[in-house]
């Protein structure tokens, strides 16, 4: 039990640190039962720690390097998509610009290709260059089976057509608090921005 409390205090310290940076008004949330740690552990198996490659051809562990302790917005896409992706990525870019003002450096954006065979790091870099993508946005590729595992664990696959169909789903989370939700990739940038701020724990007086 002591260990649990200690672990919780570490998490709380991390969260408090983030909030304090974000906003003077934001207060630490009381969590005497270790709810956040429990939820964090419960969600742990949803993020396989597979090695993926960024658009800069750097290796990143999916959980340890990209998810752990972070506030993340995760999108699944592929560069040759002529369906939703061409609209969802610029939509997300607007969200990133807005969040860079309201919570600078706090939110990590992740786009994972569902077509890793075609989407090499170079192809993803080329794709990202079409949009106003700022720092803190990773475009990821990897082994097909690793990408498929991530999709399956994150519930972002279609039971009808697991291969091609990618989803109109944006996953937003606060890893340290185990707080996760999914919403539409094409929601208004304002709506997505506000949702991320809510997940961050920003008081409603500040996002209203």
């Amino acid at each position, binding site marked *: 039990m002591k260990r649990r409390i200690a672990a919780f205090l570490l998490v709380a310290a991390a969260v408090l640190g983030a909030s304090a940076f974000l906003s003077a008004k934001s207060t630490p949330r009381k969590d005497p039962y270790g709810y956040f740690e429990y939820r964090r552990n419960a969600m742990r198996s949803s993020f396989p720690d597979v090695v993926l490659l960024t658009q800069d051809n750097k290796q990143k562990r999916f959980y340890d390097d990209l998810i752990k302790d972070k506030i993340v917005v995760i999108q699944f896409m592929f560069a040759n998509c002529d369906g939703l992706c061409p609209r969802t990525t610029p939509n997300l870019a607007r969200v990133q610009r807005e969040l860079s003002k309201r919570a600078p450096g706090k939110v990590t954006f992740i786009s994972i290709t569902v077509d890793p065979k075609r989407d090499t790091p170079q192809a993803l870099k080329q794709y990202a260059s079409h949009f106003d993508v700022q720092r803190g946005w990773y475009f990821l590729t990897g082994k097909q089976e690793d990408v498929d595992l991530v999709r399956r664990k994150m519930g972002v696959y279609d039971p009808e057509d697991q291969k091609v169909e990618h989803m*109109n789903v944006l996953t937003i989370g606060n890893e340290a608090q185990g707080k996760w939700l999914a919403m539409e990739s094409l929601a208004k940038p304002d709506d997505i921005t506000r*949702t991320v701020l809510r997940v961050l724990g920003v008081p409603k007086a500040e996002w209203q």
Partner: protein
Amino acid sequence: MTTRRELLKLGLYGSTAMLHLTGLKLDTWALSENKSPKVDPRVTPFQVDLPVPAFKTTVSPATLPGVPLFNDGIPTDYVSFNVQQTLAQILPGKKTLVWGYDGQVPGPSFQARLGRRLVARQQNSLPVNINVHHHGGHTQAASDGSALPEEEIEPGTFRDYIYDNDDDTGGFHWYHDHTLDQTGINVFMGLAGVYILTSDTIDALNLPKGAFDVPLVVQDRAFDANNQLAYNPFDHNGFIGNVFLVNGAVQPKFRVGNGKYRFRILNGSNARFYQISLSTGRPFQIIGSDGGLLKAPIEADQFRIAPGERVEFVVDFSFHTPGPNTHVFLNNTMIQKEGRGPDGVDPTQPFPLMRFDVLDTVTDISTVPPVLETNIPVFNPKESVITRTFEFNRSQGAWQVNGKFFDPTRVDATVKLNTTEIWRLRNGGGGWYHPVHIHRNEFQILDRNGIAPTGAESGLKDVFVLNPGDEIRVISKYTGEKQLGRYVFHCHNIEHEDMRMMGLWEVVK
């Protein structure tokens, strides 16, 4: 030799199965991935007595600083809740962290009366935002708990909800969390309770009362290796559990006498449907639906109940000789492997949700009157000013209404006060089930695929199950000067709702 069927009866079938404990780590999501959830092996049925949630007692408004006071002559009662975390003994061994209104799961029951206003203070002592919805109530917009983020109660703060109780009839309502994007986990953690709205006309009926009038909140849950609730917010199709609770207890037993009981059953599950029957096969009297009592009782030996729905029924145990071995099981015969929807009824696989132990000899003077509710409003289709169509569909793995996701700033329908409207609810396909809930009003189902409703569906309703391929027409009149403003309607498969299968509508003068 114990047969499979007997094991099923005992709730033990599947106890050898499926969940592999490896040290302390249990891959809880195996449950949703293996598509065949069996009963949790840690569970032994009929060990605990059915908890019956106590009625919430009123307090003086003087004890609630800042609470709204009224001098309009309408009698007003005040109640105060603390929404808090607590540890509950659900499984054997380690206790489970739960969230409850007053720390209870389900929460204390509201006891309300038509014509008496009730003000409920909800103090949030949880570490997350909450929003309390009165499901079934004809509630003012600001007190409805309609998933609007600006209405959320932040940790350490409270909100006062005003319930006018000016509905057309009394009814078996409930209250539960309705926080945008987070309702699934908040309800799963325990934020649900019963709201009983009675009236003088209902009280005048000689139905079973007091200890013979019992709410049954049925919910499925899943637990991790540490006995903690194992909710997966990534199960976007609908979360299905493998432990069955009635009023928060695992497959409880309930001591009854050889008389009539009025049971009010609420399906408080996130995504699971049930088919309810008695192990005796005996018929019972269905007396109520979502929105109140029926015009007249309907004899039935089973019924389906979807997430959010309520059914009231009277069971007569007088056919049984009281004794230690006289057991009647409340069975579920609905097979459901995933959130998509039920797979169908299998009468050869009854699963006991609870057990009635007929032990006591009682004198029963109650009756089931041939005429029940006399104040059910009649909505006239000829008066309808508009027919709106809402299609509930799936788009690339996410859930939509009319091709749109919920946007808390976009009004999808504007209704004029005191008009009658017909809403056509349509299933957008793919084999999915959507139990659609509309806030604020009670409705009459005009027809389901062109056919008039039967059973509990013939009464007042606020949840309408869209089976695959279904089209339902529902009608209501939008009365109530106090109930102006914004409300929602949504799928009550909560995982669909959390992915914003929801619409915003507004009542204007």
